[in-house]
């Protein structure tokens, strides 16, 4: 066969394969948008659920998810970024750091329902936080840590060594170099990793199942020791546990969750591209 023809056929085939990646996301967004948009209203977003969740809004679930994401961020960002700075800037290649790295890789592979059970055992029962926002945030934070650490470490390593050398040659301590030169340069990469980790946490159901999520709780939490509703779990509940649920409420809830998570994704992408253009090396 003519080799140019083979090439053209090959490219066409690869193009089709690449297109297959696009189809599911378009379908997911499209179907949810079409079937859920009619449920969206000011009341749906800001009211308490009524009549066994078949009417009213999803306000407590939205607030709950935002609070859980915030709690996750408060724990996962300092621990994750701190750990990454240690691994990238201070740690030498010893058996200890190799064990730590291995742990991070394996932590990333643990199924989320296992995190849920772990959180139940450690935070809810052993530490007696109860089913609470605190326990749920900590559980989600542990699940998020490997993502944050890997992304932050990669961003730190991408900063050329020479910057550290220059800072040292000007009488800077290692920490001063990290604080004033390396971290600001790695910032966009770190923030992107953090957001990607957080949006995964925001959409998870299994880790919050046993640690925080309330089936039906038509008021807002008052302290970190309260339970709360949360969007992913709420979606699960109204899709499988409540008979006679109007489908537009199900799709509307899915739409809100999707919008929340995708908007974080967009923010992450914008930050990354903004700093990439600004970067000077």
């Amino acid at each position, binding site marked *: 066969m003519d080799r140019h023809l083979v090439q053209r056929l090959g490219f066409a085939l690869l193009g089709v394969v690449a297109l297959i990646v696009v189809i599911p996301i378009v379908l997911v967004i499209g179907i949810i948008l079409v079937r859920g948009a009619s449920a969206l209203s000011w009341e749906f977003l800001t009211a308490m659920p009524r009549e066994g969740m078949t009417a009213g809004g999803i306000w407590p679930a939205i607030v709950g998810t935002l609070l859980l994401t915030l709690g996750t961020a408060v724990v996962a960002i300092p621990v994750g970024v701190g750990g990454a700075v240690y691994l990238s800037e201070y740690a030498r290649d010893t058996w200890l750091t190799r064990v730590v790295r291995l742990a991070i890789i394996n932590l990333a592979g643990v199924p989320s329902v296992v995190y849920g059970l772990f959180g139940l055992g450690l935070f809810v029962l052993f530490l007696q936080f109860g089913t609470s926002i605190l326990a749920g945030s900590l559980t989600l934070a542990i699940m998020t840590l490997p993502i944050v650490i890997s992304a932050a470490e990669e961003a730190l390593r991408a900063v050329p060594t020479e910057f550290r*050398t*220059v800072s040292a040659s*000007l009488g800077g301590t290692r920490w001063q170099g990290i604080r004033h030169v390396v971290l600001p340069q790695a910032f966009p990469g770190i923030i992107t990793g953090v957001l990607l980790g957080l949006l995964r946490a925001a959409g998870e159901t299994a880790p919050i199942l046993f640690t925080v999520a309330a089936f039906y709780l038509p008021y807002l939490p008052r302290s970190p020791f309260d339970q709360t509703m949360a969007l992913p779990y709420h979606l699960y509940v109204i899709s499988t546990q409540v008979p006679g649920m109007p489908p537009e409420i199900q799709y509307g809830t899915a739409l809100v969750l999707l919008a929340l998570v995708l908007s974080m994704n967009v923010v992450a992408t914008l930050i990354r591209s903004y700093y990439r253009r600004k970067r000077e090396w």
Partner: protein
Amino acid sequence: MENEPKIRIEKVSYSYGDVQALREITLDIPVEAITVLFGPAGGGKTTLLRLINRLNDLVDATRMEGHILLDGVDVYRPGVDVTDLRRRVGMVFALPLPLPGTVRENVVYGPMLAGIRDPTRLQEMLVRSLTQAALWAEVKDRLDDSASALSGGQQQRLCIARSLALEPEVLLLDEPTSGLDPISTGMVEESLHELKKEYTIVIVPHSVQQASRVADYAAFFLMGELIEQQAGTRVFTQPREQRTEDYVTGRFG
């Protein structure tokens, strides 16, 4: 060299893993003069520079023997404050590498880390060091522009100014003009002639020609050994060693 040397290097040997980078180097570096370390690549010149301000502390798996004395005090003695040493012994690298940020931020970076916050004093340091590096006239209206917007030659003079801001006693320059055009090179060399009135300068030049233009003292390095050292430019015109002559006359290197 009648006076006490600023830096005395005593039998310094150094290796990275299995690679011997320096073999028993003994060399005195006189005060307020330009000492040139020259020779073909891989001779250990840069390594020696980085040992003087202990920048090689950042490199793992190395071994050093011998002593380096600054004003008679061993810089490797336990208890020496390395950051303080690096403020006294400034360094300029082969490639100009401005820190991210403005011209002003680059120059005051070292003083700020040293804890100087007084704006008047920082401004004085800024003007003085940029003037000393022969850059003031060109950047006095661009102090708050990004340093990376400067030309290569300006960036390298900015890096010199950045080191000078700390008022070091010694300035180490590692092929500071290797990436510069002849005009910028001339300006850097010009400022070195001014600077040696106040500073002890050790430079690894990027060519034999540059070595002979700036040297008050010259030392020839070959594969980790110090072959010979002489005052002035005699090493270029009347070398004692055959290997030095071969190199300066361009027979190898």
